[in-house]
């Protein structure tokens, strides 16, 4: 542990933080300027997301961490006035290239949202929806069971697969959303504060689940909860918002292995944030 911290203590340029010799990132995200209309929401943020790792985005409210996450599968396309300069390379291919179909991108890079959002249909259909979208021809029931087991929800719902997904508790709904997302076996899972609407027990369950899921998937998570980032994330990116020049523009302050970032933060604002001096 100590020597990891040592080896990182010299790193000071977050945008170049990725160490040589590490695995090639699945997603290499570099945001130079991100606007909503005339509002500059995020600038100068470079975060590589490594295969089978959990990468956490932390930072105070309004620092643009959700915005960055939503760039990774082009969910921001839904927002009017969204403009972007930089790149998001998924397996070397920039998903913001003109020729890329955002619909196809989202089938490889799935998303779990802050509010559990199952469809108003049965538990079974919620999970098989993605299979159906992708024209899956195999044994659907088997895949649904696999996905529900993968989200450790199977035992709780196996006797009521045809009940509405909305009849489940909040934590169960969120695991249903995870099952729905992994049913089509995406490569990357984006999670936007997946536990902020859940109680501590449900939160723990989701965290354990994330640690299991990273064996198979690559995960990027936005969280308000520093302990959560410390518990689950391999890498952590700390974003901060400068209010000095009239706007509220978020940017990356520091990025590195979670333990190093928490135990030996390099930047004063990271230190302050981790010490709880502001939120």
């Amino acid at each position, binding site marked *: 542990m100590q020597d990891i911290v040592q080896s990182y203590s010299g790193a000071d340029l977050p945008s170049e933080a990725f160490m040589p010799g590490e695995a090639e990132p699945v997603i290499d995200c570099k945001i130079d300027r991100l606007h909503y209309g005339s509002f500059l929401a995020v600038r100068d943020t470079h975060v590589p997301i490594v295969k089978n790792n959990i990468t956490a985005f932390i930072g105070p409210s309004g620092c643009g961490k959700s915005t960055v996450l939503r760039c990774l599968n082009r969910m921001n396309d839904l927002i009017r006035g969204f403009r972007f300069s930089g790149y998001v390379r998924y397996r070397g291919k920039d998903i913001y290239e003109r020729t890329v179909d955002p*619909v196809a991108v989202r*089938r490889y890079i799935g998303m779990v*949202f802050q509010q559990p959002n*199952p*469809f108003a249909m049965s538990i079974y259909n919620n999970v098989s929806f993605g299979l159906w*979208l992708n024209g899956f021809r195999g044994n659907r029931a088997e895949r649904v069971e696999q996905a529900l087991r993968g989200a450790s929800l199977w035992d709780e719902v196996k006797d009521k697969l045809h009940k509405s997904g909305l009849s489940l508790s909040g934590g169960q709904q969120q695991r249903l959303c995870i099952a*729905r997302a992994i049913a089509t076996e995406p490569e990357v899972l984006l999670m936007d504060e997946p536990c902020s609407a859940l109680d501590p027990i449900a939160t723990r369950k989701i965290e354990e689940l994330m640690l299991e899921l990273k064996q198979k998937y690559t995960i990027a998570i936005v969280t308000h909860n520093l302990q959560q980032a410390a518990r689950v994330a391999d890498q952590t990116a700390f974003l901060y918002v400068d209010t000095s020049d009239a706007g509220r523009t978020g940017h990356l302050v520091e990025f590195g292995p979670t333990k190093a970032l928490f135990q030996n933060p390099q930047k004063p604002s990271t230190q302050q944030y981790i010490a709880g001096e502001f939120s």
Partner: protein
Amino acid sequence: MAQHADAAAPARVSGLSRDPLSGIERQKLEHSLRRPRTFVNALLSSVVASMTLLALVPLFSVLWMLIGRGAKRLSLEVFTQTPPAPLEAGGGFGNAIVGTLVMVGLAALITVPVGVLTAVFLSQAEPEDRLAHVVRFAAKVLTGFPSILAGVFAYGAVVLSTGKFSAVAGAVALSILMLPTITLTAEDALRMVPTKMREAAIGMGATSTQTAWFVLLPTALPGIATGIMLALARAAGETAPLLFTALFSHYWIASQGQLDLLQPTASLAVLIYNFAAVPFDNQLELAWAAALVLVLLVLVVNLIGQALAVRRVE
């Protein structure tokens, strides 16, 4: 107000008297109509309640009269027979019930796809989309469109071009009246679908068409169905648009198993209109019975709409 509290204050226990520190007058806790705001409150509440009752008077008095004068003529015969000739006894308005159902159903077949798909467009359009603004405005104008003009339009568009009065012409006229109700209620219902559900579908890689078809429409279905039912109920009671489109007929719309939509067709509303103006007792009685049947039909359709709306809440 202030006097009232001050005069009472000295004799009362400290908690209820005027508190010198807060400057807020304390009043006794019991109800008292002598307190002006309590009195005004009670007065306005009773005004509101009596206005509500007043608004219910037309509905219930009409229903009362219809039952009183129409119920006695209700029998199996009125549902199975065609209208009698003048001075003929007996008869019924079975063909008019069928005609109304056929024309309203045909109008729904025309309107539901157009209205619901328009609503999908409206609900998904950008807030400053010009076309959406124009469509929405047109739909709102159409809500107050005089029903007789819908009949004039269908007369020009269908009756003149086909050369005869017909059920199709009647259905076209009714569909113009149903269109705005269906479009606007369906748009509302689609907008009520939480954004997070739309995001969920798009986040999984659904196209906007798949999102609309498989997530938005099923989720909004109860609300859309309620709107359709309200529009159907309104159309079933319309007379003016049918007067010079479907006209009237003394015969069944289907004979020997053949449904002929291109012929003059009877409807309950026009039957009531025609029979209410003749000097024959038999026809007058049938008009009352037909009015009762029409109101019950509309009531049932509305109840179905209500039931669907309740399902949406659950």
